[in-house]
């Protein structure tokens, strides 16, 4: 059977790297920091692949269905008889897949960073942070308990905060990391309350138990959860929606996406790790993890997931067309692609012909896309990193014509662009086709949105590509001494490029499906024509507009000025948030609260004090110093006392 230790080591190795480098990275491990981290992660990656092999091919399957296995569980914090946070390991197709993805991408980033981050003062710290992040992410995907997931969820948040804020003395980086953390934190609040709701109704925090209590129609918990309602929506749906808010926050779904572009302030490999492959897909993973509950018991919530996903995909794609910072373009493209994964889940069904009457293709497609996207998006970011490393700028206007200067980067970047644009036979094509197919089966409106978006995707990706590598001729700076980057930087690019090119041929449906049963991926040539053609049209447009330096893009931008401007300004979502936080929370709640405290509550105490003082001042006249008056008071007092006693 499974070897618990070998699985447990996968997250623990990065953690060990974190602890080692965190404690000693500044002193005697300074030189070797990077290599130690890479070594640890390499081991973890190997173990992850080994685990995947073992799970998928050796023991994972029983009766043709992939099992949810819990090889390890420890009651970490027992709340009451039913509820407890267990730290455990849950193996099922998606967690095993995620293990592979996370370790692989992380390893690539580790290796790449050896070159990219060379000479940084806090080199060891950087690797420590990477280790912490990888650990949290792995812990998250292996969680057997929803609260355990929340724990790692938060850890992911904080480690991403650390990584984004790595250049801590750059004010924009500080602002960005704060923003990232706070926005996701806000979403986590939803997640937390969602957990509370779910745990209350399901009576458990354990994923497997929750699956049985909340999805089997006979369970009493399910009945009470569905019957208990608030504002006309069942409690369970509320719970699922709240959980989804958490996922949406991490996955930068509209309107909680605002942190993502800003988060590009981190070092570029970090962007690759966080935004391409791991953290942002945590939300997707969460929805996938709870997919049976969504699909079987709270289909309304799933609808919401679908629409939010579609809207995010579209909006992000539009914005991406207008950005000039290459990392921001990639960031918005990430958001758009995550949107694809989300709505793919949203339109899916638990099994073929289930409650929604559609197919369960979406689930598989979503996971497939997650997988391929991780590969090509990591590649894109790392490529962009190489470019930035070379030209020392993020802005498109400083680039152009780089294909001759950095040939390897150019080729790999092109492969990635083709993949994301959905050009066969690259990986993105297969996964996107499945998504579109699922959408077509599930929800026609979303299908058309998706279709349009994928065309846009192709356009903006190639706008990026042409702007960087073609367009004008690159004026080499005099101070730019180094070349494209060393072996350590190119190796990951090549490896990932290979993955991006070939991953599409994996029969993904065999391994990952909503109900664990193998799913034959459908492939209709006719269906593929529309997306591919549209994608190619997008590429063509980009070619016309950006291949050579010319006036056309500006003209088009001018003719669409309203849309362009609002898209360029990210549809002013940031401004709305600023307004809400600055004006409402700070001015209308925070300041009055502080004022209230200073004036009213404090005032109450001080007034009590001053009243006492005033009384004391007022009655001082009694003590006049006149002995005769004293006697008068004496007598009057005595008489009053006498009267009171005698007649009352």
């Amino acid at each position, binding site marked *: 059977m499974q070897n618990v230790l070998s699985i447990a080591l996968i997250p623990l190795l990065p953690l060990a790297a974190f602890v080692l480098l965190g404690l000693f990275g500044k002193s005697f491990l300074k030189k070797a920091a990077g290599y130690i981290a890479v070594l640890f992660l390499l081991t973890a990656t190997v173990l992850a692949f080994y685990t995947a092999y073992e799970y998928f091919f050796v023991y994972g399957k029983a009766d043709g269905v992939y099992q949810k296995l819990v090889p390890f569980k420890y009651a970490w914090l027992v*709340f009451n008889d039913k509820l407890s946070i267990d730290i455990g390991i849950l193996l099922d197709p998606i967690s095993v897949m995620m293990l592979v993805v996370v370790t692989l991408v992380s390893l690539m980033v580790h290796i790449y960073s050896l070159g990219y981050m060379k000479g940084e003062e806090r080199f060891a710290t950087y690797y420590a942070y990477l280790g912490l992040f990888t650990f949290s992410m792995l812990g998250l995907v292996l969680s057997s308990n929803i*609260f355990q997931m929340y724990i790692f969820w938060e850890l992911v948040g904080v480690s991403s905060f650390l990584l984004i804020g790595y250049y801590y*003395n750059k004010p924009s980086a*500080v602002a960005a990391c704060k923003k990232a953390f706070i926005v996701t934190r806000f979403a986590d609040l939803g997640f937390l*309350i969602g957990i509370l709701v779910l745990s209350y109704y399901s009576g458990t925090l354990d994923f497997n138990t929750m699956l049985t209590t909340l999805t089997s129609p006979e369970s009493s918990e399910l009945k009470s959860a569905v019957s208990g309602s608030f504002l006309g929506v069942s409690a369970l749906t509320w719970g699922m929606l709240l959980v989804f808010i958490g996922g949406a926050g991490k996955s930068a779904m509209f309107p909680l996406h605002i942190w993502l572009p800003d988060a590009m302030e981190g070092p570029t490999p970090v962007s690759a790790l966080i935004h391409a492959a791991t953290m942002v897909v945590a939300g997707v993973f969460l929805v996938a993890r709870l997919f049976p509950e969504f699909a079987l018991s709270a289909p309304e919530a799933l609808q919401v997931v679908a629409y939010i996903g579609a809207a995010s995909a579209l909006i992000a794609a539009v914005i991406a067309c207008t950005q000039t910072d290459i990392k921001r373009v990639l960031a918005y493209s990430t958001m758009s692609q995550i949107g694809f994964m989300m709505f793919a889940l949203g339109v899916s069904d638990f099994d073929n012909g289930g409650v929604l009457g559609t197919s369960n293709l979406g689930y598989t497609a979503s996971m497939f896309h997650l997988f391929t996207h991780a590969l090509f998006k990591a590649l894109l970011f790392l490529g962009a990193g190489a470019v930035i490393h070379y030209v020392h700028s993020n802005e498109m206007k400083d680039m152009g014509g780089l294909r001759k200067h950095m040939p390897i980067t150019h080729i790999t970047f092109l492969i990635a662009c083709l993949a994301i644009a959905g050009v066969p036979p690259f990986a993105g094509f297969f996964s996107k086709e499945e998504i579109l197919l699922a959408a077509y089966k599930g929800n026609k409106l979303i299908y058309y949105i998706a279709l349009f978006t994928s065309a846009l995707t192709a356009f903006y990706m190639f706008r990026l590509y042409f702007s960087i590598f073609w367009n004008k001729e690159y004026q080499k700076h005099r101070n730019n001494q180094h070349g494209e980057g060393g072996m350590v930087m190119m190796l990951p690019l090549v490896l990932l490029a290979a993955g991006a090119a070939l991953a599409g041929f994996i029969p993904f449906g065999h391994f990952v499906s909503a109900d664990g049963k193998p799913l034959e991926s459908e492939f209709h040539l006719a269906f593929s024509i529309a997306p591919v053609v549209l994608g190619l049209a997008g590429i063509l447009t980009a070619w016309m507009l950006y291949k050579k330096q010319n006036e056309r893009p500006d003209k088009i931008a001018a003719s669409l000025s309203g849309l362009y401007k609002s898209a360029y300004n990210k549809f002013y979502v940031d401004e709305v948030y600023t307004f809400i936080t600055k004006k409402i929370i700070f001015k209308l709640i925070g300041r009055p609260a502080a004022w209230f405290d200073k004036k009213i509550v404090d005032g109450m*105490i001080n007034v009590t004090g001053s009243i006492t003082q005033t009384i004391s001042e007022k009655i001082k006249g009694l003590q006049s110093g006149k002995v005769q008056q004293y006697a008068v008071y004496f007598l009057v007092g005595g008489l009053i006392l006498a009267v009171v006693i005698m007649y009352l």
Partner: protein
Amino acid sequence: MNLLLLILIPLATAIAVLTARTKQQVRWVSFIGASIQLFATTGLLSAYRSARAAGQNAQMLFEQQYNWFPNWNISFHIGVDGIAVAMILLTAFVVVAGVLVSWNVEKMTKEFYFLLLLLSLGAYGFFISLDLFVLFFFLEVAVIPKYLIIGIWGSGKKEYSANKLALLLMFGSALILVGMLGVYFGGGKSFDILQLSATKIPFEAQKICFILLFAGFGVFTALFPFHTWVPDGHSSAPTAGSMFLAGISMKLGGYGALRVATFLLPEGAKEYANIIIVLSAIGILYGSFATLMQKDLKYMNAYSSVSHCGFVLLGIGMLTKTAIAGAVMQMVSHGLMTALFFAAIGMIYERTHTRQVNEMGGLLKTMPFISTVLFITGLCSLGLPGLSGFVAEMTVFVGAWEHADTFHRVATIAACMSIVVTAVYILRAIGSVAMGPVKESFAGLTDAKWNEKLAAVILLIGILAVGLAPFWLQDLINPGAEIIIQKLSAGK
């Protein structure tokens, strides 16, 4: 394990401090005394665990009883249950750290340490006493040292703050006193907690006394709207003073509210639970929003203490076992965390001579250790898993969620919201203190010295021990909480 040791060690240390000649001697004597105490408390922990494991099921262990004022049925009755052990451990941790952090106090060093030790003596005594009178005695013993510590060694408008603190705390004790007398006469003329818990106090008396007792202890633990001593007191106090105030003193209130008000007066507690919940929810939110507007680090932490202590009261008000266990955990966690936070602030202040957030920047560069400590406590404060704050807050939330009605739900959600606000202010603070461009005037500053490092590490160990392995703390607390709940449900 002889519990008397717990008050004799600080007492002996305090006397030894008085006889010490040089400042250096004073410091070492206090440090050694506090460390011995720390060892004694860990010894207590293991003794307690082994006694429980050996099947001793009495509510209180290591009981001792001496007649004190037989005329009033007052006896010097001491004993501990798991909750008390947890609080004692917390105190020991904070005391050692506080002693270490105060290494630089040059002004009247001997008196300073003497008062610190006296304060800790009061806290230890409070936690082990099983007699209301003794409990009250120790509670009050701890008041005046606070006043003097703030007033003499404080900064800013220290006299005002010291006065306010002393008077408000006395106000609290006055309420407690009256409530205590009510319990005494209502419960068959006994001050003994165990005896009282066995007698049935009339409902009417319970109602009145509960208000008095809870409000009284509430003052100590910053129940809205009696919290105003907290910001001023904490911000004016010297570092160790703030640590003790937030880390220990506020816990006296929480423990009292639980052990005395709730445990002895279950009917009253049920009657007024909703009011407590409302007040504490207000306190939580209001404290966190007020924190948003603070510019002074100490004020920030003080207001956030108001918010965090709200969780303690919320947990108690929820009257479920999980919530009460959570409240106790929150006490432990908050004690460690704020103590560390104040320690870090103190270290920073000692170097930069400012506590204004916007006047600092980039301290991570010049003092990486202190900044990291600040950062970790900040994370603990906003409830990061793996650190103690998370465990405690989640336990309170889950416990609170056991009530199904809308009222409790709304209160819980309101309380949950504070974790976002907390994130905002903590990150704001850290962002502008530790991160950002390095201010030139701070470029030459040095990092923590050995004593400061040791203090921080000790508290960090506590935070991590709770955060990473909450189960041991829970094992400690749960039986105690269980008994309180039994009493609550038996009252019907």
